[in-house]
C-alpha cells in the first residue's frame, strides 16, 4: 500500500539529473556567479582592481576574517552563533603582547596563554548556552562586552606595539613571500588549509553529519545518541580559537595590537557566512559558500573604494549588496521548494 503513497517521480536516472541541477541551484553557486559578476564590474570600472598590488592587498586581509568565518559557518550550521569573535580578535593579541612586554614572558609561552584564553572564552560561551539554555545571541553579546571591556581595561585603551622581531612565530603566522609581482602572506596558507579541513569535516566526516543534524532538528539528533551539547561546546571553542588566531595574524602583520581591533567583525563575519548560503537557522551550511562570501565582502569593500564611492557611504553599499544576496537566496529557496 505504501507503494501507492509515495509520489516522488522515479526515473532511473533521476538522482544524477537532480544532482546536477541542484548544484546549479545551490546557494553557494548563485553566490559564486554574483562574485564573478562583481569582480568583472570592478575590473571594468577601475583597471587597478586587478593589479598585483591590489590583489595582494585583498589577499592579505581576506584570511583574517575568512578564518573566523569558517568557525562561524560550523557553529551556524549547528544552530548557534557567536557575537564575541570580534572582541576575542582584539583581546588575544593584546594579552599576548602585554605578557611579553610587561611580564617579560617568552613569546611562545605567551601565545600558549592566549590560546588557553580563547579556549576558556569558547568553553564558557558553550557551557552557558547548552547547559543553562540561554540563547547564544544573549550569551555571546554579553561575552562581547566582557571581552572588549577587558581588552580596553588591561591596556588602558592604548594600542601596543606588537612583536616585530622576525622569528619562528612571526614567520608562521604573518610571514610573506612573493610570487611574481604578487606578495602573499602565510596567513593565506592557514586560510586554505583550514578551509579544506572545514570542508572535509562538514561534508565527509561523521562530525559534519552530527553538526548538520543538530542544527536541523536537535531533538532528533539527541534521540539518535548524538552528543549535541558536547559538539556545540567544541564548536564554540573552535570559533573562539580561530578568532584569536586571526587576531594574532593581524597583529603580527601590522606590528601593532590594538584593544579596539576587530570591532564590528562579528557582524561582517556573519554576513560573509549567510551571503555564502549558510542558513541562519541552522541545518544547512556550506564552507565553499563561506569562502565565496568572504571573497565577495572583501572585493566589495576594496572595489567601492577604487571606483570612488565616498568613504562615508561604504556601508550603504555593503548593506545593500548583502540584502540583495539574501533576497536572492530566499527566492531560490522558495523556487526549489515549489519544484
Amino acid at each position, binding site marked *: 500500500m505504501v507503494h501507492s503513497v509515495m509520489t516522488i517521480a522515479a526515473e532511473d536516472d533521476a538522482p544524477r539529473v537532480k544532482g546536477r541541477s541542484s548544484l546549479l541551484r545551490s546557494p553557494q553557486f548563485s553566490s559564486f556567479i554574483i562574485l564573478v559578476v562583481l569582480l568583472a564590474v570592478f575590473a571594468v570600472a577601475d583597471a587597478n582592481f586587478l593589479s598585483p598590488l591590489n590583489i595582494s592587498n585583498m589577499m592579505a586581509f581576506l584570511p583574517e576574517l575568512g578564518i573566523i568565518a569558517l568557525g562561524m559557518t560550523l557553529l551556524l550550521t549547528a544552530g548557534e552563533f557567536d557575537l564575541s569573535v570580534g572582541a576575542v580578535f582584539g583581546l588575544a593579541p593584546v594579552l599576548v603582547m602585554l605578557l611579553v612586554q610587561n611580564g617579560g614572558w617568552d613569546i611562545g609561552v605567551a601565545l600558549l596563554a592566549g590560546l588557553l584564553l580563547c579556549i576558556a572564552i569558547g568553553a564558557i560561551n558553550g557551557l552557558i548556552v547548552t547547559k543553562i539554555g540561554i540563547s547564544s545571541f544573549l550569551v555571546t553579546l554579553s561575552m562581547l562586552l566582557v571581552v572588549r571591556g577587558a581588552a580596553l581595561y588591561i591596556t588602558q585603551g592604548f594600542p601596543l606595539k606588537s612583536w616585530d622581531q622576525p622569528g619562528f612565530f612571526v614567520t608562521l603566522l604573518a610571514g610573506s613571500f612573493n610570487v611574481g609581482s604578487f606578495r602573499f602572506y602565510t596567513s593565506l596558507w592557514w586560510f586554505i588549509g583550514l578551509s579544506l579541513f572545514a570542508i572535509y569535516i562538514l561534508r565527509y566526516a561523521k*562530525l559534519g*553529519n552530527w553538526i548538520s543534524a543538530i542544527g*536541523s532538528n536537535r531533538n532528533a539528533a539527541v534521540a539518535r545518541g548524538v552528543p549535541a551539547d558536547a559538539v556545540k561546546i567544541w564548536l564554540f571553542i573552535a570559533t573562539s580559537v580561530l578568532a584569536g588566531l586571526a587576531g594574532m595574524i593581524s597583529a603580527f602583520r601590522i606590528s601593532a595590537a590594538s584593544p579596539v581591533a576587530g570591532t564590528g567583525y562579528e557582524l561582517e563575519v556573519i554576513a560573509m557566512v549567510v551571503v555564502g548560503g549558510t542558513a541562519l537557522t541552522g541545518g544547512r551550511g556550506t564552507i565553499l559558500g563561506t569562502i565565496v562570501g568572504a571573497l565577495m565582502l572583501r572585493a566589495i569593500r576594496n572595489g567601492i573604494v577604487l571606483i570612488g564611492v565616498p568613504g562615508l557611504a561604504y556601508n550603504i553599499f555593503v548593506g545593500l549588496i548583502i540584502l540583495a544576496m539574501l533576497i536572492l537566496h530566499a527566492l531560490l529557496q522558495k523556487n526549489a521548494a515549489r519544484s
Partner: protein
Amino acid sequence: MEVLRLQNLQKSFGSVRALKNASLTLREGEVVALLGDNGAGKSTLIKAISGVFPIDRGDIYVRGEKVSIRSTRDAMDLGIETIHQDTSLAPDLSIARNLFLGREPVNFGWLGVFAPLDLAKLRKAASELLKRVGISKKLDADALVSTLSGGERQSIAISRAMQFAAKVIILDEPTNNLGVEETHGVLRFVKEVRDAGHSVLLITHNIHHVFQVADRIVVMRRGEIVAEQTVADTDLLTVESIITGADMSALLKEARAR
C-alpha cells in the same frame, strides 16, 4: 517471553508528577497499545524508557536483566528504538544520512568523530533498506527529508527502527497528521514488525487503530496505569470509558435516573 519490564517508574517535573508508580510488561512479538488522555504521561513514560531523561525512581528490566538507561545511546544499545511524537528526522539531511544518524558507517574508525563517512556503504545500505520496506523505487536515498511528505517521513523513521533489529520498537502517535492511506501504511508496518518478531509499544489516540493492530491495551491516567486488558477481552466503549475515567456504574445510575 518477556522482553521489557517496567517496575514502579516515577518521574516528576518540578511539582508535576508525570509518572507515579507506572509498571508495564512487554512480551516478545506482541503489540501493546498505550492509551490515555492528553497529559496522562504516555510520552513521559516512553521518553524514560528511551533515555531522553532519567527516571527518578523505579526499575527497568530488559529480557529479565535489570538495566540502567542514562542516555538515548544506552537505550539503542539495549535494542530499544523509539519514534517520538515530535519528528524523529533531521529535515536538512538526506534519507540515507538520517537512516544512519548516530550510527554512521565510517572508514578509519580510529579517527573518532573526525572519521570519514563510508558514503558508498551508507548509500548502498540505505537503498537496500528502502527496498526492503517496499519504497525503493520511489525514494532516492540522497533526497533531503525536507522534500518528503509526512507519511513518507514516518515510513523512513519506522524503517530506521527496524533496521537495527531492535527488540522493542516504540511509536509515539505515529499516525498523527497522516492521511488515510499513510495511516494504513503505518499500521501495516506495525503488523509486519510484530510478525518479524519485534515487540511494539504503540501510543495513539485512535482507538479504532488499537483494535486493528494491538494484542493488549494499557491505559494511563494522571501518571498511573489504570487498566490492562487483552484486546480480545474488551470492546471499544469499555476502553473509552476507562480512558476518560468515567465511572461506568455512575453513568448507568445517571441514565436510569433520567
